[in-house]
Structure formats: C-alpha cells, structure tokens
C-alpha cells in the first residue's frame, strides 16, 4: 500500500505543478500588462508600482513563478482590487458554499441512482428495467443549468413550494441539490445495474438461490457488496464534474460560491480572483482524484500492483 501511495504521489506532483503553472500563466497570457491587469479597474501609478514590487513583475518569468509559489505557501493569493479584500478570504467564504452544494448533490445522486440501478439490474429486460434505462438516458441529456431552471419553474414559480434562489436556509439548498442529484444519478444507476446483473448471472449466486437464500438476500449479500467498489472509483472520477456542476448551478440559483466568484471576476477582469479560484478548484480536483485512487487501492488490493 505504501509503494502504491508513493507511486501515486509521483503522479500527483507534476499535476500540481501543471495546475499552478496554468494559474500563474493566466495573468501573463491575458492581453495587456500584468501589473495593470492585477491593479483592477482604477490603476494608479503608485498602485502599479506596488503590485510590480509585490509580485516581482519586472523579474524573469521563472523567478516570478517561484515567488508566486512562495506567496502561495504563505496563503497569500493576492488582493482583489474590485472587492477590496484578500483573495484568500473571498475564497474562504465561497468554497464552503460550493462544497455544500456539490456534497449534498452527490449524496442525493447516490441515494437516487443506487436503488434505481439495483431495481433495474435485478431483472434486466423487464418493463421496470427499460423504464429506468429510459429515465437515465433522459436525465443525462438535459443540460444541468436548464434542469435547474426547470426545477425553479416547477417548484418555485408554479407550485410556490421552495425559494427560487439565494443562500442561507436549508430550503434554499433543496433545488440545487435536486438538480445535481438528478443530473448525476444516471451514471451511478447504470454502473449499479450492470454490476448487479453481472454478479447475479454467476453460478455461486444460483447456488445460493438453490440453497434457499431469498432473492433480496442474494442481491444484498453478493451483488451489492461487489458493486460498491467500482462506485467508489467512479465517485473519485466524478469530483471534477461535481465541482463544475456546482459552479454552473451557482449562477442559476444565485449562490455566493466559487462559480459565482470566478465568473464575476472574469467579467470584471479581476485577475487575482480568477487566478486564485482556478488554482483552488484545480487543486481540489487533483486532490480528490488522488484520495479516491488511494481509497480504491485500499479496498481493492489488486489495483495496487498494476
């Protein structure tokens, strides 16, 4: 396990390097003078001079990158001229919103997707199975942000049951969670369906049935346990999409999360915030994949020796 973890770290390090380099280069590749971009909408000569000094913008690029990394390790992501706040503090208040939406939505996707997959996989080809396959193929085709809008139309505009936007109460989280849950359920349902169907076709399951184990007993004891491992792996691979989905939904439901912060920053040319948010989201995706791989290696020893 230690060797496996070590090899995985060797993959993670260059990935982190690439992401930090990408975030660093955003400011340098954008058209215009980096100091001017970082100074925001009202640059003054003294401000530009201060920023040039702080980020060492007159130094050679590799040296600037090293300074950028050093600042990063001190938790300094720069200062947003637009918001008049350090970028790190903006992100500290936005990230929990994105994580709450993404986390809740994923739990809901699992709670909806797994039972649907089990129900379909127990009797492939049945009416119920066909119905569930149809549901999953429709839910993956509907764009996530439009699904959010549809939920607002149904539950806020027409029925008036839930608030259409905003952040702060539990009721305001339900529609974003539901949107992410419905959008994500298909992949878990399909995975579960195929796993269950495959396991149930094995001889040892037929033996268990012949010995008198009940149908739900075989599903639970044999099929379900085997299907959980690939779900863990899938979950890790999905983290990026969950974050991206949460980012998009924040603009549907006007949530003060990372997506809202990042998109507003791009539209306002607030480059320190763009840089900081891209960096944090990028590192989150990489770390989540890393943790999922380790967890997968832990529950499934054979993967460690590949």
């Amino acid at each position: 396990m230690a060797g496996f973890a070590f090899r995985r770290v060797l993959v993670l390090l260059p990935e982190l390097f690439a992401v930090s380099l990408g975030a660093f280069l955003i400011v340098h590749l954008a058209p215009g003078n980096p100091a001017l971009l970082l100074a925001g909408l009202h640059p003054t000569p003294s401000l530009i001079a201060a920023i040039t000094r702080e980020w060492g913008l007159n130094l050679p690029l590799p040296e600037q990158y090293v300074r950028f990394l050093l600042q990063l390790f001190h938790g300094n992501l720069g200062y947003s001229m637009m918001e008049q706040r350090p970028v790190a503090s903006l992100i500290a208040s936005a990230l929990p919103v994105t994580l709450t939406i993404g986390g809740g939505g994923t739990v809901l996707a699992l709670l909806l997707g797994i039972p649907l997959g089990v129900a379909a996989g127990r009797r492939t080809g049945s009416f119920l199975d066909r119905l569930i396959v149809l549901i999953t193929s429709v839910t993956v085709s509907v764009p996530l942000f439009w699904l959010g809008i549809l939920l607002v139309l149904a539950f806020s505009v027409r029925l008036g049951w839930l608030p259409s936007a905003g952040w702060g109460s539990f009721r305001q989280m339900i529609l974003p969670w539901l949107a992410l849950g419905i959008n994500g359920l298909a992949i878990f349902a399909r995975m579960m369906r195929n796993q269950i169907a495959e396991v149930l076709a094995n001889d040892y399951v037929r033996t268990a049935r012949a010995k008198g184990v009940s149908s739900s007993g075989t599903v639970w004891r044999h099929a379900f346990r085997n299907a959980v491992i690939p779900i863990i792996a899938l979950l890790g691979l999905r983290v990026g999409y969950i974050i991206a989905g949460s980012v998009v939904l924040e603009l549907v439901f006007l949530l003060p999360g990372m997506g809202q912060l990042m998109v507003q920053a791009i539209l306002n040319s607030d480059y320190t915030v763009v840089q900081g948010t891209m960096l944090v989201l990028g590192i989150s995706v990489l770390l989540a994949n890393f943790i999922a791989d380790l967890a997968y290696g832990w529950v499934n020893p054979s993967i460690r020796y590949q």
Partner: protein
Amino acid sequence: MLQHAQQAEKVRTGWWRRRLRLLLALAFVALFVALALLAPLLFAHGYNQQNLMSSLMPPSSGNPLGTDEFGRNELARIVWGAQVSLEVGFIAVLAGAAFGGLLGIVAGLFGGVVDTLISAVADVIWSFPIILLAIGLVAILRPGVESAIVAIAFGFWPQYARVVRSSTLELRGRNFVEAAVAVGASQWRIALRHILPNVLGQIVVLASVGVADAILAEATLSFLGLGAQPPLPDWGGMLSAAQTYVLQAPWLSLAPGVAITLVVIAFNELGEALADVFAPQRRSLAG
C-alpha cells in the same frame, strides 16, 4: 435449436431498432443543420428586430414561441441560434480532432520522450472537466464565440490524441505497416497513407458525440455569460436572459432548453449508431 432461433430473432429486431435510431438521429441532425443554414431565408428580418411595444408576449400565431424582453420573435432567435451552436460545435470538434489526431499519431509513431510529453500533457488536461478548462481559457482570451471555440477545442484534443495514439501503437506492429517500413516509406507517408485511414472511423464516432458535448459546453459557457455575447442569439445566453423574466414570461425559459436537449440527444444517438457501423465490437449488449 429454439434458443438459436430466438437469438437470431433478437439480433434481427435489434438490427431494425438500431437502423431506426440511426435514421431518426440522422433526420434530426439534418433538420438542425438545415434550419441553421436556412435561418437567413426563414427569418429574413434577422434575430435582432426589436419591438418594445410587444415585449414578453406569450406564444401566439404571429410569434409561435412568444417574444423576449425586447419584443424579438423567440422562434426566429431559436433558429438563428442553431447557427451559433452549429458553428461552435463543428469548428471546436474539427480543431480538437485535427490537433489531437496529429499529436496522437506523432506520439504513437515516434514514441520516446515525444510520446511521454504528449501523453502527460493530455492526461493532466483530461483529468479536468471541459467546462472548468473552458472557463479558465476564456479568462485568458476574454468572453466571446471565438474564445469559446478555442477553449472547447483545447479541452477536446486529449481524447483524440489518446485514442489515435493507442491505435497507432497497435497498427505499427501490423504486417502492412512493417512492410511499408521495409520498402522505405517515410514516417509521414506511413502516418498519412497507412495509419490515418485506419483510425478515421474511431475519430468520426468520437467527433459525433463530441459535437453534442461541444454544443452543451458552449451553451453552458454562454449561460454563464462567457460565450456568445448579446445580441447574438445563443441558446444558453437566451436561457440566462430568460431567468430575469421567469415570472412574467416562463415560456422563454423552455424553448432554448428543449432545443439544446434535442440536439444533444441527436448527436449522441448518431455517435452510438456510427459506433455500430465503424466499431461493431463496441456494440452494447443492451442494444
């Protein structure tokens, strides 16, 4: 015997169902492309003819899908919007497939450091969802349709590079390629005459599904305000604008979403059907 007959029957109905799906998907894609190309004929007034006297009108015989906040014909904007989707979808996929395909062949043929480098870059890009990559690139390039195309193509090339690279590696060991090497054919001649024709089918399958992904990504970018800018009619942008009027004019929040969903389903189905034609071993058991 009976089992075999049933099996054959199943395969035959499966064949018909697949043929029907292919035809339906093709018909819908053709309709989408035709509408996009014929938009200037169907709605000669363009997509930006404003009439503030009749803004936010519900669907009627004159405006089958109602009017938006500027009194513009929603149907005209949907049809003109097909042009934007078509343009972004096709150009982004073509660019991504060409660039990725080229790098994939280079990585597969030359191997060594070149291969390691190309594969590593492709892997890192591949571990991020397209929409996050695209947002990052638009941050550099500034919002707009051209930026959206470049951003989406940038997120797309790794999948083509990976598929083409692994096919190239496999083909390189085959007799006909070794024969070409033996008679002294150059690397480029081998790439163009022997490798490319053999990986084209896979690229076409990927590209069809890719158009669906690209259209979805572009609509999402425009919804975020980072893609096509007003007054250009873009399905994602139209949904974003419609959100302000969700109480007065809920119909504006429906039509563009239906359009995106149908086009995405059609290109995905087309991809599945093409996979049957080009890569029969990939045929799904579910049929």
